[in-house]
């Protein structure tokens, strides 16, 4: 099982969600985050004082998928979230030790 974490532009959430649903991904967690990679922030001015805002709002998606599903999910996310400009985001993968369904006692891939 693989955990897929994707940090994407906030405006791309709907597109990515739809793309993932289309390939059969059924479960995900969506978090509001702030961050930056190489993307520059912007400057705001209040009563003459300048404030540099370099933590930009982002969306982070987390999902744990079966190994074969993970690659399909990565392709779906990339095609839905890409604009070609700096700030598109990143995807990280980690191996998951186990998954458990709380409702019953399913463990492993059957819990996904």
């Amino acid at each position, binding site marked *: 099982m693989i955990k897929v974490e994707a940090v994407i532009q906030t405006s791309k959430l709907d597109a990515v969600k739809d793309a993932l649903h289309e390939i059969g991904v059924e479960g995900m967690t969506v978090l509001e985050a702030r961050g930056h990679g190489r993307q520059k922030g912007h400057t705001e001015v*209040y009563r003459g004082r300048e404030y540099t805002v370099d933590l930009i709002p982002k969306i982070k998606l987390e999902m744990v998928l079966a190994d074969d599903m993970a690659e399909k999910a990565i392709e779906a996310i990339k095609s839905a979230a890409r604009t070609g400009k700096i700030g598109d985001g990143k995807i990280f993968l980690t191996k998951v030790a186990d998954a458990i369904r709380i409702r019953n006692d399913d463990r492993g891939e059957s819990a996904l």
Partner: protein
Amino acid sequence: MTKTLIPRAARLRGGLAFLFLLCFGFPLTLSAQSQAPAPKAESQSAEPTARETQNARVTALELQVADAKSSADNAWMLISAALVLLMTGPGLALFYGGLVRKKNVLGTMMQSFAMMGIVTVVWAIFGYSLAFGPGNAFIGGFHHLFLRGVGLAPDPAYSTTIPVETFMVYQLMFAIITPALITGAFAERMKFGAMLLFLVLWSIFVYDPMAHMVWGKGGLLNASLGGAFPTLDFAGGTVVHVTSGVSALVCALYLGKRLGYPKIPMPPHSVVLSFIGACLLWVGWFGFNAGSALGSGSLATSAFVATHFGAAAAAIGWSLAEWIRNGKPSALGAISGCVAGLVAITPAAGFVSPMSALIIGFIAGVFCYWMVTAVKSRFGYDDSLDAFGVHGAGGTIGALLTGVFASSIINPIFKGAGGKVFPSGLIEGNAHQMLNQLVGIAIAWVLAIVGTLVLLFIVDKIVGLRVSSDHEVQGLDLSQHGEEGYYWETSA
């Protein structure tokens, strides 16, 4: 876990003392309140002649007309009083509240709201008497202690058509908002109890004398009642804005900067709230300025129009300056500009023409923008919400421009023997008035500086002014009031 600021025994003593004062004051008020009876005409003879009947009817008619005029004036004045209170709550509370960080929103709003409660009580007991009662050139006295003699008959020195009680409650709203304005200077770092003590003392020792000098009977600066240095201040440019604004600067310097200022960014947590507050201030200001006509006649119209025009022109002035300097006109800038214009037009409202109001507003908008951006950053003081930059500076320039633009055509304030009308301001030909304006402004500055320094020192020694750095980091909402402004945690 927040600790209580005053021990329980002391609070009990305080509460009992307050109740005692109230019980003592009550019978005094009831027994001593004088009410002048309304004169009634009665025909005397058993067989009234045609002449006598006619006279009686005319007299009755005259009374009805006076009654109608009084009703109209009183209606407008009561509405104006309500409008001015609206300026404090929620106008100023929102305007200031939106400008601070989220953790201080309630603390900031509480500062304005507390004035609504506590200044009212002090005003009722002796504040009105000090400001508007008979006394000397600098201060009233205790003639109207517990509002003795302040009833439903007019006080001809102030108005012949409205009950003096209306006048009293109208002026109360000014007494409330003035100290509330100062809170902008020490935002996010003043202890609640210390703020209460300081502002109550300020209201008594700075506001009441200034109000007396400019508006009170016998006041040194009173233009309507023959003061020695008649200062043209229609609705409180010097009394309200210069005093509070300059005091604000003193407070900002005395208390010092907020932790992390200016390195840590502290942008407003909600310009939306400030926007709403500013618009409430604009509308409420019609009560502040047009109500200062103390009647519903044409002078109120003059003041109303001048107020509105000043606000609009100033918003444009500030926005234009910002657009040129920064490339974008901000919403915060526009609303700050309109407030600056309202401040500047306050002393001028009932003395200047609509066109002059546009000019005054525009100048104030640009000037205050410069004060708040260039001057403040040059000197580095943390006047957190620009109480000095907008009120102190705006009030000063407004009072000066009043001397320039005041016109006897709008308001024949200076009259000689036989009703001869003298020119009011510089452009009209009365250059001397600029001197009087300077005297009034100077007195306001000096009174504010000296009074504030002394009172800050005293309160600092008694209770300490500033919150601890832990409390400042935690935020006033939690540390002073045990609350959070927005409890948006996700617990269903």
